[in-house]
């Protein structure tokens, strides 16, 4: 099997949306397009309330990804782990569908004896190492996130360090919401290196609304543009579009 491109949105937030479309509906839309959404809820001295927790879980659930609530100090390791875990999850979903075609209905990895499962897992690990990866990072910069942004920046640098150690290419882009004029604002275009994230990033913060749903919707169009341009070149990407779980 040839490695395709894994597409993810990494949403970093600390609470509930309060403007625009329902975020989990937008996450569902993303999943339909083969884009996985992972959500990290960051706490510092504050706690994320019940409503916020539910929303975070729901977005990742609908987006076929992974969610995790952490204290800011643990952010680096979590960002790395969540991205990795979601990659494995997506690849396993693809492999399971292949297995079903080969072995017949409702057979998955779990039904294989441990030794065979080990062999399949080697393929999963191999694909995780060699696949191309595109991560669109969506950072909530509403007022309460302000003092957490330096930590977010560090963790993003750490993420690019981990992902760039893989054999497959990785590319990142960074968006913040709410933007100055729009719901979402592009900070960094697709790049393999997050070092390019400007020094001004930690100082960004805007008051007012938290339009998580609209931010996801706009982020998706950014992937779409990308894909229509590259669609002709990478046919084998198709296999990942259909399903992400």
């Amino acid at each position, binding site marked *: 099997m040839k490695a395709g491109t894994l597409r993810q949105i990494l949403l970093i937030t600390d609470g509930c949306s309060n403007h625009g479309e329902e975020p989990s509906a937008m996450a569902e839309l993303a999943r339909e397009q083969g884009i996985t959404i992972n959500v990290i809820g960051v706490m510092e001295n504050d706690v994320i309330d019940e409503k916020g927790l539910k929303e975070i879980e729901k977005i990742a659930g609908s987006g076929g990804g992974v969610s*995790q609530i952490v204290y800011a100090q*643990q952010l*680096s*390791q*979590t960002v*790395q*782990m969540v991205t*990795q875990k979601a990659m*494995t999850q997506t690849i*396993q979903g693809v492999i399971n569908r292949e297995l079903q075609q080969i072995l017949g209905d409702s057979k998955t*990895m*779990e039904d294989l*004896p*441990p*030794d065979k*499962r*080990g062999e399949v*897992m*080697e393929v*999963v*690990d191999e694909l995780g*190492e060699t696949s191309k990866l595109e991560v669109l990072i969506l950072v909530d910069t509403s007022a309460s996130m302000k003092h957490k942004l330096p930590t977010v920046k560090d963790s993003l640098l*750490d993420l690019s*360090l*981990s*992902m*760039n*150690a*893989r*054999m497959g290419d990785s590319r990142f882009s960074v968006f913040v919401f709410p933007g100055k004029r729009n719901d979402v604002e592009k900070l960094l275009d697709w790049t393999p290196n997050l070092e390019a994230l400007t020094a001004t990033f930690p100082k960004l913060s805007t008051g007012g609304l938290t339009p998580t749903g609209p931010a996801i919707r706009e982020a998706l169009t950014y992937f779409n543009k990308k894909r229509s341009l590259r669609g002709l070149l990478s046919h084998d990407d198709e296999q990942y579009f259909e399903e992400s779980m």
Partner: protein
Amino acid sequence: MMMNNTLRNQCKLLPGSLVTGKWNKNQYKIIKELGCGANGIVYLVESGNRHYALKLSDNGTSIISEMNILKSFSKVQGSTLGPSFLEADDFMKTGKQLPFYVMEYIHGHDFLRFIDKKGSSWIGVLMLQLLTSLSALHTNGWVFGDLKPENLIVTSPAYKVRCVDVGGTTLIGRSVKEFTEFFDRGYWGLGSRKADPQYDLFAVAMIIINSAYPGRFHKKGEGYRQLNDLIKQKKELHPYRKMLDKALNGQYDSALQMREDLVTVLSKQNHSKKKGLTQAATGQQQTMQPSTRQARRSQNNSKKKSGGFFETFCLLPSYRCSMFFTYMNSCYDIVIR
């Protein structure tokens, strides 16, 4: 990372219960829990009058990757670094399939506690052993990845350093996915996370630094300068300075090269202060451990009175478990004495 409660409940087994494999039909009797991690619980088990460690999980993915690594370890000639692999199977518990694998039970002392008790002169000797094992591993195309004192066990009566938790082990050229910041060269800004022998050698240097700074420290500003300053501040690290510097900068081509330098450092020390290596040679006779489980148990029971040097457990998963630390703390007084 906290382990979720579902895993805890699903994989929770009481001493005396039996685990029977769905495929191979082998039976294991649970003796006690050894530790728990993000993706499973490790038990001490008995089968055919022998002891093993059994890891049970509710998540097939990560446990299968670990199993693959353990299997490759077994193929590495002459490497006694990790536990040897016995078999993998599934356990059916109330209709749910829980994958598990069985491996050698490595018993001994946590590395830092051992150094605490036996003295810092042991650090060099144990690092020599570790470098020899790493050399064999590297030659076979692997990097250990998550090297840290918590993953090192010193067995007795023959003091031998072994590694438990092989979850970070990575093929050379691939990315290291499981690591601990303090021992990770990427965190200190001193290299990538691509697996190469130098990645492990960096961690060996950090283990030596850690022994002088048991509380560890966080990165502040420029990593290399900070580490350099901290090495200068500790007298016990001075003999190792040149070697540490080379390892931190990835200047050793192989584990054996670093080992050679370490031998030189240690033999110099031996001239000035004979204690170090002589202690290593005679150390074996100092504390013998009872070899049967019954004997150990009776010693454990009387540990408060005798203050004996007794068995701590062995398998430490990547994420620390609070239960384990409660257990360790209760042993602390006795082991350190």
